[in-house]
């Protein structure tokens, strides 16, 4: 065998074991009636698992929940991140301090963040509802109407710093001259932002959106740690639904099929956003 093939062999082998095998195996599962409770009786079902998903109302609900969550959380993160980045860009002296402080949430494992907010926002024990109550505001953070929104806020708490860092780096990399020209041209800060900053920052914004949207699509830990999909199915997201189907109800065939549908949706999303980015 040629040396160069021998050199990539270990990596290729590792990739096969770690990635290709599970992918192929789960694809195989998705076409079978594969239940953990009936492993001696695995039967081929063709595309029936996929057909089942189409008629599975909870799956549709989970998809809507997830998309709502992604749109909401990522929008909040975008607006907050961009606003903070613009602010920090001017506060040069605070930049390093602020970077360090704002980075902290990103270092915490999401499951811990979930548990933390479960207590912080708990309507009987939580410190946040307690202080809100002292100023007369009573909010049930995890009731049916608000639970998904609360999860968005938690996601924003953890991931806005990521957006902030991306945008701060993007802003620093923009050419200085056009902004000076705009000042001399008499443009107000508002006009400059809409006509210059935002269009020039567009590629960075799109990359940040793609990364965050893909990540938010996979939201699981907050749901698992706080609401377990409830109340009712108000916060049941796709990944949580797949987890339930596969590991609570042991129906791995359907769960694998759902996972493949999710991959399809994500790929579609990536292509759309990527095309938007490539356009000019």
């Amino acid at each position, binding site marked *: 065998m040629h040396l160069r093939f021998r050199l990539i062999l270990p990596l290729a082998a590792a990739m096969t074991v770690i990635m290709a095998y599970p992918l192929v195996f789960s694809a195989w599962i998705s076409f079978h009636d594969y239940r953990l409770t009936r492993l001696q009786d695995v039967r081929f079902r063709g595309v029936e698992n996929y057909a089942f998903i189409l008629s599975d109302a909870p799956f549709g609900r989970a998809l809507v929940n997830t998309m709502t969550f992604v749109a909401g959380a990522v929008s909040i993160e975008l607006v907050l991140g961009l606003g903070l980045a613009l602010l920090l860009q001017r506060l040069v002296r605070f930049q390093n301090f602020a970077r360090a402080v704002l980075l902290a949430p990103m270092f915490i494992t999401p499951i811990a963040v979930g548990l933390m907010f479960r207590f912080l926002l708990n309507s009987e024990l939580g410190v946040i509802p307690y202080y809100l109550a002292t100023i007369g505001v009573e909010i049930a953070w995890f009731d049916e109407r608000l639970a998904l929104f609360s999860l968005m806020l938690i996601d924003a708490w953890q991931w806005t710093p990521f957006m902030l860092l991306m945008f701060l780096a993007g802003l620093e990399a923009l*050419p200085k*001259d*056009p902004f000076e*020209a*705009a*000042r*001399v041209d*008499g443009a107000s800060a508002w006009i400059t932002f809409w*006509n210059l900053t935002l269009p020039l920052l567009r590629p960075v914004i799109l990359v940040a959106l793609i990364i965050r949207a893909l990540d938010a699509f996979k939201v699981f830990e907050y749901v698992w740690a706080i609401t377990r999909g409830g109340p009712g199915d108000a916060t049941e997201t796709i990944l949580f639904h797949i987890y339930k189907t596969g590991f609570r109800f042991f129906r791995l065939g359907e769960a694998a099929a759902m996972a493949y549908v999710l991959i399809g949706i994500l790929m579609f999303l990536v292509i759309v956003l990527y095309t938007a980015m490539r356009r000019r």
Partner: protein
Amino acid sequence: MSGVQLKNLRKSFGLTEVLKGINLTVESREFTVLLGPSGCGKSTTLRMLAGLEPVSEGEIWIGDRNVTDLEPRDRNIAMVFQNYALYPNMTIAQNMGFGLKAKKMPRAEISARVNEAAAMLNIADLLARRPKELSGGQQQRVAIGRAIVREPNLFLFDEPLSNLDTKLRVEMRTELLRLHRSLDATTIYVTHDQEEAMTMANRIVVMNGGQIEQIGTPSEIYFKPNSRMVAGFIGSPAMNFVDGRVGVDGLETSIGPVAHPTKLASGDAVILGFRPDDLYFPDELTAYQAAMSVDFTAEFVELLGARGIVTLRAAGAEFKGVFEERFLHRFAEGATVALALSRDRLHLFSATSGERVGG
């Protein structure tokens, strides 16, 4: 149009003082060039005029308004940057109209003004394109157009031609002059290129080390430089200098005695300067005109075309001379050539202060 006044303008970055008190009056409609080596503070002065750099001390007046603490947009000025500073995301028309859009001018009027300026600058066919599709020269025209449409009180140019190649630079120079004549606008133009300064300016302000070294017309600057620095900075090849001392009836220099009257006291150290163009063959000058005659040894000849630069040597020092092509055969390598200096073409500077003390 309005004039400009800088009153004791100072600028420090931290502990470093980069402008040490600039006093300058620019008349209305004048084309003034700030000229100086890198780091002399000319660009900083311009940026302070534009309002991009806060003033540490002193005042800036445009017309009869004190604009020292005003934002750039309240000064009604236009600036052309060295690297054009176009808005990369906008079309050429949008680039040129942006300042007017910021002023909330009606769209029809914006496009009328943009079209007029574009026609004037021969870029009318580029209006729908974006900056990166344009060549450097075209981009600079757009930048100038963007300044023109604003109809400002004052035009500021920050080394606008230095990113262009030589041929284009000469063309744009002429064009800028034509533009200045037709717009009749007060213009302050920063450059380190003395040729640009000499050809374009009504008045040149030579700056050095954060101070104004001399203010004058191009010919004053060239023929009566105020200081050794100005004398050495203006002119190409640079002026020749010789160390000397005031003697009893003239100067004693390392290349010989010079018959040159001076008010200075005997014994004062001076520097004698003469331009490479001011070396004459002895038969070209009358006895009165000739201040001295020196035997030079020729080393190199660099032919420029109609003229050539000759490298000469005398008393161990190197000198440059410029001669017409038909005389260049006299400067064969190693040849000894007697050359005279003209009395009215000498420049005398104090060796201690560098100030002009005669000539």
